C-alpha cells in the first residue's frame, strides 16, 4: 500500500525536512540552491521593462505621475514585494517544520525614499533608496503568540532577500556599449 504523506499548510512536512537535510548533507544540492540565481531585465519602451527569471517573466513600469503608463508595479515596489514574499515563504516554512497550521498570513510593507532628488538628478548626495523598510506580519494560526513570534523572527533572520537588503551588499557592475 502506498504511503500517504501528511500535508500541512499545503506543504509536505516530511518532504520539506528531507530537502532541508539534503542541503546540509549533499554538497551538490547545496551548490544548486546557493546559486547563481539570475535575472535578465529587458527594456521595452518608456519606463517599461520585463524581467526574465528561469521560465518566468515579470513586467515592470512606473506610475503615471512619471509620464509612464503604470502598466505594472515599479521596481522598488517589487523589491518590497520580494521581501514580503520571502518572509512569507520563511514563515510558512518554519511554521510547517514546527507543525503549526497557518490559516491566514499577510505582510504589509512600506518605505519612504531618503532623497529621491538624487534619482531625479537634482542632488549629488544622499541615498535615493529606502533608509528604512517596515514589514508588519498579520497571521492567524494555531499557535500561541510566543511561538508565532519565534517563527516570525526565524523568517526574518533567515530571509535571503531581507538579509540582502539589510546588509551592505557588494554590487559588481559592468558596462558594455554594443555597436553604434
Amino acid at each position: 500500500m502506498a504511503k500517504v504523506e501528511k500535508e500541512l499548510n499545503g506543504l509536505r512536512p516530511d518532504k520539506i525536512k528531507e530537502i532541508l537535510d539534503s542541503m546540509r548533507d549533499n554538497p551538490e544540492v547545496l551548490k544548486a540552491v546557493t546559486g547563481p540565481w539570475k535575472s535578465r531585465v529587458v527594456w521595452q519602451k518608456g519606463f517599461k521593462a520585463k524581467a526574465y527569471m528561469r521560465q518566468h517573466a515579470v513586467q515592470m513600469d512606473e506610475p503615471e505621475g512619471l509620464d509612464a503608463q503604470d502598466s505594472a508595479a515599479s521596481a522598488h515596489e517589487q523589491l518590497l514585494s520580494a521581501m514580503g514574499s520571502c518572509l512569507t515563504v520563511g514563515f510558512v516554512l518554519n511554521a510547517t517544520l514546527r507543525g503549526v497550521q497557518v490559516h491566514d498570513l499577510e505582510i504589509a510593507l512600506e518605505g519612504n525614499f531618503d532623497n529621491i532628488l538624487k534619482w531625479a538628478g537634482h542632488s549629488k548626495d544622499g541615498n535615493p533608496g529606502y533608509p528604512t523598510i517596515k514589514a508588519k506580519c498579520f497571521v492567524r494560526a494555531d499557535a500561541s503568540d510566543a511561538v508565532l513570534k519565534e517563527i516570525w523572527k526565524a523568517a526574518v533572520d533567515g530571509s535571503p532577500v531581507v538579509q540582502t537588503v539589510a546588509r551592505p551588499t557588494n554590487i559588481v557592475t559592468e558596462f558594455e556599449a554594443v555597436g553604434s
Partner: protein
Amino acid sequence: MSKAKLFPVTVVGSWPRAPWLVQALRRRQNGEITQAEFNLIADDAVLAAIKYQEDAGVDILTDGEVRRDNFYSFVVEKLSGIRLMKLSELMDYVKDRAGFEEILRAADVPSFAIKSPIAVDKVTGRDGISLDEFDFLKAHTTRQTKIPIPGPYLLTRSAWFEGLSDKAYPTREDLAKDVVQILRNEVIELKKRGCDFIQFDEPSLTQVVYGDEAEQTFMCAALGTRRDPAEELEFAVRLMNETVEGIDGVRFGVHICRGNWSRKEDVLLKGNYGPLLPWLMRMNIHQLVLEMATPRAGEIEVFREYKNQKELGLGVANPRIDTIEDPKQIVQSVNKLLEFYDADKIFLNPDCGFGTFAERCVNTPEIAFKKLQSVSRAAEILRKEHN
C-alpha cells in the same frame, strides 16, 4: 408606542466572545462541526450574555449576537446564494486596489480579516436570518427582547460585488429587491413570535458621508461600489421604507455608528449626524440607535431641529475603552438632550456592541457588564428626576 418606564436601558447587540466560543466558531466555519453542534456550544454563551445583561439592569436584551461571526456576515449561514469571502479573495475583483490598500493601512488590518457576504447566485431565504436566535432568547428571558439584523442598504451594498454578483443580479437594484423581501419576511416573522424591538444595523451610512471618496471601500462593512452620497442615502431610505411598509406593533430602530473594529480612535470615522438626519428622519422607523459617547460623533445639538421626531437610543458608554462611565456624567449628557427632547423619547445604550467582530472584540465581559451597570444606575437617577 408606549413603554413601561422612562429611559429604558438596552444594548446595541454584540457581547464579547470567550476564546472557546471563537474556536468553536472557527471549527464550524471549517466544516469540522455542524451548525447544530455549534449551537449547543453557543447556547452557554448566550445564557451568559443574557445573565450579564439582566444582572446589569438592562431592560431590553439581545442574545449578544454570540452565534455570529459579525453583525452582517453571519447571513451566509442563513441564506442561499451568498458566500462569505475575505477581502484577500476579492482583491482580484477590486477596481481601485491602491485605494483599498490605503484604507487597510489606515485601519491597520489585514485583508484576510475583512469578510463580506457576497451574492454569487440568486439569494433566497431558508429558515430566517435570526429566528433561531430570537426563539432561544425569548425562551430564556422574561424581559423585552431586541434583535439586531443587517439593514437592507448594508446588506445590498456589501453583497453586490461587480464581477461576482452580476450574473445573478445585473445591478445592485436587482439584488435590493430580493434583500428587501427577505428582510420583510424576517420582520413579519419576528413580530409574530413576539419580538419587541428590531434594530436594523446600517453603519455604512456614516461611511457614505464621512468615508474617503474612493468609489469602493470596506469601511463600516460598506464593501461595494458607492455613488453620490445623496443618491446613496435616498436609496437607503427607499429600501428601509419598503422593508417595513405596513408593519406595525413592533419597534423598529436603525443603528448608525462610525466603526467598531478597533480601539484606536484615530482609525475610526468621525463627524456628527447632521448630514444624515434629513434622510434618517424620512425612514419609517421609531428609533435612531446612536453612538454619542465619543467626541468623534459630534454634538447632540444637531438633533435640536428634529426634536421628538424619532426616539433616540442615546449612546452613553464607549465600548472601546476600559474606563467605566460615571452615572452622574451619563445623567449630565442626557440632561443636555432633555433641554430640547422629551424624556419618553430617550433610550440609553452603549455606542455600539462589545464584540462586533467575533475575533476582534473591543472589550471583556467584565468591563461590558460594569458599563451597563453604570448606564442602568444613570437611568434610575434620571427616572427619579423626571417621573
